[in-house]
């Protein structure tokens, strides 16, 4: 274990603990205000916890709270670099001096700091920009240089706070490829809203909600078999929880659902979750026949997504065409049948 983290901030109702092994990249997902920024600020030393303890490579970052010897390592001695949503390149320094900032601060000569900076600029394909000032860069270029700057400081742990969020959709893929290359075998924590970042960059995912971890596990298993509604939502899935029956699942509110046969058989009455893609859910105002799963729910939200509209109701969502939404005269508050076939519903035990 190279990184151990356990901290609570009472005022923000934040209480999170996890460990990270050497070379592991962790994605932190969660809704706005869930405590992701608090987490990064605690690790980088911009915020101190009410109680808890964190260790990086055997060195204590902080310790506080009852029964603990109070300890606090200032940010610049932690070996933790932060890459923020905005590049925040120092406007008065050239690109090269920005990247050389970390090495120079640790006391190496200007010449070798610049040599290191050039290596990292080449690593992010930005070598030709070294003489420019930050004001002369595009958003994507600036963020790539910020990546180089963070890495040039040779951090033991790299924190990334939604590094792609402020970028144009057109330039995000290039930066994602760069990150994928440089994050390999590097201990890093990436806070993101984007499931693609989690899939391409992270070995493991934790999901934070209301200041607490609600999911923790390997990226694919968390995102393909989500247990809680927030994870399901960002993974683009509906989840219905209940207990195992002979042919499927009985939901907590008593609806019987048929599901596809599980990969591994699940004993009856076990707590289970069924997942179904919104694309496979149909909305209709007429009562469907008994051969499909059907839930009668009031529409709570209509959200345009590309050329489809996601029709949300309590516990389930469906993707419908704008024409269907118009024909059915769906509005917020309209009750409708949400139907899906057994083959489209995947069932798995709720406990991992």
């Amino acid at each position, binding site marked *: 274990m190279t990184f151990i983290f356990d901290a609570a901030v009472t005022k923000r109702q934040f209480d999170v603990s996890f460990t990270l092994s050497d070379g592991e990249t962790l994605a932190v997902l969660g809704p706005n205000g869930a405590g992701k920024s608090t987490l990064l600020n605690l690790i980088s030393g911009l915020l101190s916890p009410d109680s808890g303890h964190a260790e990086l490579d055997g060195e204590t970052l902080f310790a506080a709270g009852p029964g603990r010897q109070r300890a606090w390592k200032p940010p610049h001695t932690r070996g933790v670099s932060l890459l923020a949503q905005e590049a925040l390149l120092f406007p*008065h320094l050239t690109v090269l001096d920005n990247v050389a900032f970390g090495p120079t601060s640790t006391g190496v000569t200007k010449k070798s700091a610049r040599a290191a900076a050039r290596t990292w600029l080449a690593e992010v394909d930005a070598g030709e920009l070294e003489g420019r000032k930050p*004001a002369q860069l595009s958003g994507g270029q600036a963020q790539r240089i910020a990546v180089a700057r963070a890495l040039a400081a040779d951090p033991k742990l790299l924190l990334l706070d939604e590094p792609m969020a402020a970028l144009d959709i057109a330039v995000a893929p290039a930066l994602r490829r760069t990150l994928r290359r440089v994050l390999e075998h590097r201990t890093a924590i990436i806070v993101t809203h984007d499931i693609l970042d989690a899939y391409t960059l992270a070995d493991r995912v934790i999901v934070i909600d209301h200041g607490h971890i609600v999911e923790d596990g390997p990226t694919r298993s968390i995102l393909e078999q989500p247990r809680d509604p927030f994870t399901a939502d960002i993974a683009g899935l509906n989840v219905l929880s209940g207990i195992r029956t002979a042919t499927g699942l009985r939901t907590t509110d008593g609806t019987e659902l048929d599901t596809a046969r599980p990969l591994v058989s699940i004993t009856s009455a076990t707590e289970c979750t069924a997942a179904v893609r919104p694309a496979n859910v149909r909305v209709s105002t007429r009562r469907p026949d008994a051969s499909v799963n059907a839930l009668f729910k009031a529409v709570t939200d209509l959200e345009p997504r590309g050329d489809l509209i996601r029709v949300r109701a309590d516990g389930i969502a469906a993707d419908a065409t704008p024409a269907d939404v118009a024909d059915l005269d769906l509005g917020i508050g309209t009750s409708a049948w949400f139907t899906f076939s057994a083959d489209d519903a995947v069932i798995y035990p709720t406990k991992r």
Partner: protein
Amino acid sequence: MKASQQYAGIPKWVLAIAIIGALFVMLPLVAMVVRVNWAEFIPLITSQSSIDALLLSLRTSSIATLLCIIVGVPMALVLARTSFPGQRILRSLVLLPLVLPPVVGGIALLYTFGRQGLLKAPMDFLGIQIAFSTTAVILAQTFVALPFLVLSLEGALRTVGTRYEAIGATLGAGPTTVLRRITLPLVLPALISGAVLSFARALGEFGATLTFAGSLQGVTRTLPLEIYLQRETDPDAAVALSLVLIAVAIIVVGLANQIGSNSRLYGERIS
């Protein structure tokens, strides 16, 4: 310069009042320029007492500005970057010389550093006498000029924010390195314009200087004091010297504006 006119929407009466205000400021300058005895101008401003006063003013104002920077930068940093109980009161007190009549400031300084002042014992022990010396001139100027630097720098520090400093810290730079390589370069335009304002205020200082330092030619008689004194005996000399002071002030304000517009080079990114 003006390629296209943008709709400004200023009522005509606002414009009229603005013009009256501008005239109010500019007419006295014109009146003085008109009154200058140009034939005698050079001899008037190059008399021994005039040159003594001008050189003394420039020397003391420069040192006072330097003192303002040395103590003002840490003060602005503490006011902008920390929070502690009583901070608001402290800020008001620090900025007090801005609104205090300079004569009152001079009296206050006299009762601090004067022969019978608050610091009498330590100063006697060290054998220092300050009142009615060039040092007193510098102290009086620093006292009245300091708030200008602190105020302008504190505002700039708040505008720049702490995000760049936080990034610098996570890149391994200690607080002093962050201050030297990030904070100060980012607020440099405000620091320079604050220093220029302080210099201008120090140069024009009259009341506190007269009260605390007196008026001794070549020692404490700065240019404003010399002008006031000459007005009694030789009005032509007073007017000529006033024009010199105005010229210096205009150069200083122009310099401050120049720096202010240069600061917009990367100002947009900061805010």
